[in-house]
């Protein structure tokens, strides 16, 4: 759906990373983990295209005033990387944004009793919070593995902890948690579990590739959330595609990230293509 949304809050939560809360229509409450929105940053033609962002959280707020109507809201977690995100970070409470969404196919939450290991790199945590929340609600054991270059890239860990999720962190410079890659901690956990778990990952390509490899080694299911350069977000432009498992230059096999994804089984994709 397309709607005009009012910004409820917009704050820098870590250097370069922002969290925005926005109003949404009633139907938006049905958004599922892994889905995204396309945000029109302003009404002008620069930036021209909408920008895609994961749904970080969705909820209902009942204002304390008596007789106030409950308001559905959603949140985005974003990193300032260019023009559009810089403009978003300059917006204030009560500013309006044109939103398309929720869009795409999100995470499959699997069966409840198996342990769920969630791996996020930097801003890749954005679609994983709602996932963790839903998994916890379904009584799945959940652990989070969050990696980044420095401590500034490790976002919202307290939020995950508040859900009761056990969190492991690793940074390349050792400023928070273990020094190195968080996939090491992931492998240790998998060894302890004797490889009975489901993986979920979102983050930079290198990390996704590493997690996909680990999943293949341990023979366990793994879902990854991909990025693609999107123009429409609704399956019309075919700009966002990613190579599927059968892909080769001779026999191309492209999957539409905005409709078939952004979440895919890692084994359905071609890695390093």
């Amino acid at each position, binding site marked *: *759906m397309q709607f005009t949304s009012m910004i409820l809050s917009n704050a820098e939560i870590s250097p370069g990373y922002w969290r925005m809360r926005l109003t949404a229509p009633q139907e938006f409450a049905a958004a599922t983990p892994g889905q995204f929105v396309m945000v029109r940053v302003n009404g002008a*033609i620069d930036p021209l*295209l909408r920008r895609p962002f994961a749904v970080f959280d969705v909820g209902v707020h009942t204002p304390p005033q008596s007789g106030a109507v409950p308001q559905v809201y959603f949140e985005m977690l974003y990193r300032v990387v260019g023009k559009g995100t810089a403009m978003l970070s300059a917006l204030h409470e009560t500013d309006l944004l044109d939103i398309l969404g929720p869009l795409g196919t999100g995470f499959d939450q699997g069966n409840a009793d198996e342990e769920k290991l969630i791996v996020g790199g930097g801003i890749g945590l954005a679609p994983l919070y709602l996932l963790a929340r839903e998994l916890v609600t379904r009584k799945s054991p959940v652990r989070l593995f969050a990696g980044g270059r420095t401590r500034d890239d490790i976002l919202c860990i307290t939020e995950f902890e508040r859900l009761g999720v056990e969190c492991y962190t690793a940074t390349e410079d050792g400023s928070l948690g273990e020094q190195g890659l968080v996939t090491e901690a992931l492998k240790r956990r998998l060894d302890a579990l004797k490889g009975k778990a489901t993986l979920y990952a979102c983050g930079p390509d290198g990390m996704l590739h590493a997690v996909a490899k680990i999943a293949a080694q341990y023979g366990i299911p793994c879902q990854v959330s991909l990025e693609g350069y999107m*123009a429409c977000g609704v399956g019309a432009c075919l700009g966002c*595609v990613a190579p599927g498992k059968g892909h080769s230059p001779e026999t191309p096999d492209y999957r539409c990230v905005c409709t078939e994804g952004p979440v895919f089984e890692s084994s359905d994709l071609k890695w390093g293509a």
Partner: protein
Amino acid sequence: MSIVKPDMSVNLAGIPLRNPVMTASGTFGYGEEFSEYVNLEAIGAFVTKGLSLKPRAGNPTPRIVETPGGMLNAIGLQNVGIDAFIAKKIPFVRTVNTPCIANFFGDTVDEYAEMTRRLNEIPEVVALEMNISCPNVKQGGIVFGTDPACAASVVAACRAVTQKPLIVKLSPNVTDVVAMARACVDAGADSLSLINTLIGMAIDLKKRRPVLANVTGGFSGPAIKPIALRMVWQVARAVKVPIIGIGGIMNATDALEFILAGATAVQVGTASFINPGAAQTIVEEIEAWMVANGVADIKTLIGALEV
């Protein structure tokens, strides 16, 4: 006397349109993708993604990049192919009471003609739009739409196998668009649509590489409007068939400018990515503009530019 309901209908080479606003090929999927956001029965017509005999997988990624006021795309004409179009897309088209125009292309003259034959048999397809901005693989890869003789031969081959209105979509990547237009009309085109995308390029300085995997891509969006307007104006003065104006149309003002320049209808492309309801909004805005400006019939605006 004030106008309550202005007449927005136009006739495009025998196809009556309720209004002159259509969607552009490759920017509106097969219609269904947008049905949640647009009332398809509020627009004049919709044009399908470019179709070919066999499905096409398209180009490697990145396929898209934004540039100031525009975007580059190198999708590589990915499409489901004519068989899947008939089996999977036509059932939806049938439910919509709005003319569907099939855009198509081929690698050779024979493929274009075969596509025309196939599309000719589909009752739901009211008109055909030929994308001639494709290389002729049998003639050293020369782009059909950049050589008048080449264009004429492929248009003539398609003309010979259909009675349906045949729209030829012109490439702007030519020295003399009027010569191309004349060649296509002489070969039997019932209408011309222009412009297709301009060939452009973007570079990532940090990586010292082109941004698009295909290196070059088609440039579209508001940045190309002045070029498109100029070409529509030149072509409309030179040929007698109805013209469809395309290029950077974002709002009613843009659309009306094309109509003044000589277009009978317009297509909205990139704008649908930014606002999926763009085409419908433009219809509503044109109507409001006509009421506000006392224009009772849109046909009186076609080519009404005062120079």
